[in-house]
């Protein structure tokens, strides 16, 4: 499956990745090669095979309801790029 320029742009947008126009052909080539590799899967008939999401046949463990965490805002926000009054700041979100 060969990807085109517009496919790459779409995917990059979905993934929120800025890529330069100049790099698009290289991405298209590499991604197409990877998809060609992946295409080999289609040769196998998997009808009736249960999809395996997890390596182990285990079930979800449940945690008792209870507050175990304390306020660490100052600690966590030391590594934040932009904060004010305890809030994380982002460019204006328009609703």
């Amino acid at each position, binding site marked *: 499956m060969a990807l085109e320029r517009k496919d790459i742009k779409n995917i990059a947008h979905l*993934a929120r990745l800025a890529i330069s126009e100049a790099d698009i052909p290289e991405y298209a080539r590499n991604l197409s090669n*990877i*998809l060609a590799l992946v295409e080999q899967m289609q040769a196998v008939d*998997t009808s009736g*095979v249960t999809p395996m999401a997890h390596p182990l046949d285990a079930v979800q463990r449940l945690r008792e309801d209870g507050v175990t965490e304390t306020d660490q805002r100052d600690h966590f926000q030391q590594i*934040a790029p932009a904060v004010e009054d305890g809030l994380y700041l982002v460019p204006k979100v328009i609703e």
Partner: protein
Amino acid sequence: MHNKTLSELSAGLAGGDFSSEELTGGFLARIGKFDGQLNSFITVTAESALAQARAADARRAQGQAGALTGIPLAQKDIFCTDGVRTSCGSKMLDNFIAPYDATVIEHCNGAGLVMLGKTNMDEFAMGSSNETSFYGAVKNPWDLKAVPGGSSGGSAAAVAARLTPAATGTDTGGSIRQPAALCGITGIKPTYGSVSRYGMIAFASSLDQGGPLARNAEDCALLLNVMAGFDPRDSTSVERATPDYSAALGNPVKGLRIGLPKEYFGAGLDPAVAQAVEEAIAEYRRLGAEVVEISLPNTALAVPTYYVIAPAECSSNLSRMDGVRFGHRCAEPQNLEDLYKRSRGEGFGEEVKRRIMVGTYALSAGYYDAYYLKAQQLRHLIADDFKAAFEKVDVIMGPTSPSVAFDIGARSDDPVAMYLADVYTIAVNLAGLPGMSLPVGFADGRPVGLQIIGNYFDEARMLGAAHQYQLATDWHQRIPHGFE
């Protein structure tokens, strides 16, 4: 001192031959002397290491030392370490001072191990050569022109060069075993769910598993005893008593049923690697093992399957790197979309971006069934292959990697060629089985690794088989020239 194994160091500390502070100082000195050539560390935590060492000595003085108290080790820079930069080999997290400890770090601290620093790795563990690190390629101590393998390349190189007696690693598609093989050391990826993933920065959640890299199987067992254990903070952590991984080290190999998958010895395998592996198998025969040929018919599908599942999971796992709460944020974002796109575009390297894009595509509307669902079905078939095999044999053996370490830069233009080289290790992660690599010789002066794949939770038997081999051979004692 630096050539001693963990158990020898443990005995030395216990006998008062040297203190942890002296030991730690010795390894820090070696890092200072040699790591300029290797680039195996991203961060060296000399000061806190010496403080930890002194604390370990004090603990020992109080008679409260455990087996590994006071022994230095290096942590792969994928494990969050409170107060220490945890970069995951990425520009994205170059400024990320982790605000908490991963469970593995807690376990190591609890055991009194001394952290020398954080080791270099492929960016977000995506790579098999350590060339994708934001901090530059790591060199293979056996040949500085060669890659150390990846993604735990810094850990493997540091152990091989005796800059640390042991290190942690993570393995999503071979990232412990392959660098262990290429650097001539021993490493084990335990059964999925054995080592907590809490605080281990996720690449592909259903495949990632932490494990130790050391110079021999005995040391791997000792370190795995510390790393493993049930963790209520990880839903995929297995709720069972932590086994004693050292328990079967003394078990003789006699009667061990070894399966050799014919698919692991076919086209693509470097003949020199094949020869070293076959000689190792011959040694096992001499030790009394029964060797039979088996088949893992879906082997060729492992790489395609993996390159849907791993990118799909990573595309989602890495979405949290958005420049809002931590990590790289682009300068003067014009709007929200610009903040996301430039922060991520600048923060991630090429290979990471490629995989995020592949995964995004595989999960997107209209392609989910053809890619993701199909891959999950194949994953089942691949796991079933192993299940059938383990009805006939105790362990499976074969090469870890089809070739020895290649030269830096030799494969960087062809991602697919690089992916295909993981053919022997990837299926193990898809199935969630334990796998390890141990050194069994050289080809063209570069180390060759033997892979042992075990049944679920059968690590002790694998480690025992490896240990028995290491009692009979000395490949694991070889030291790369210049690092004696």
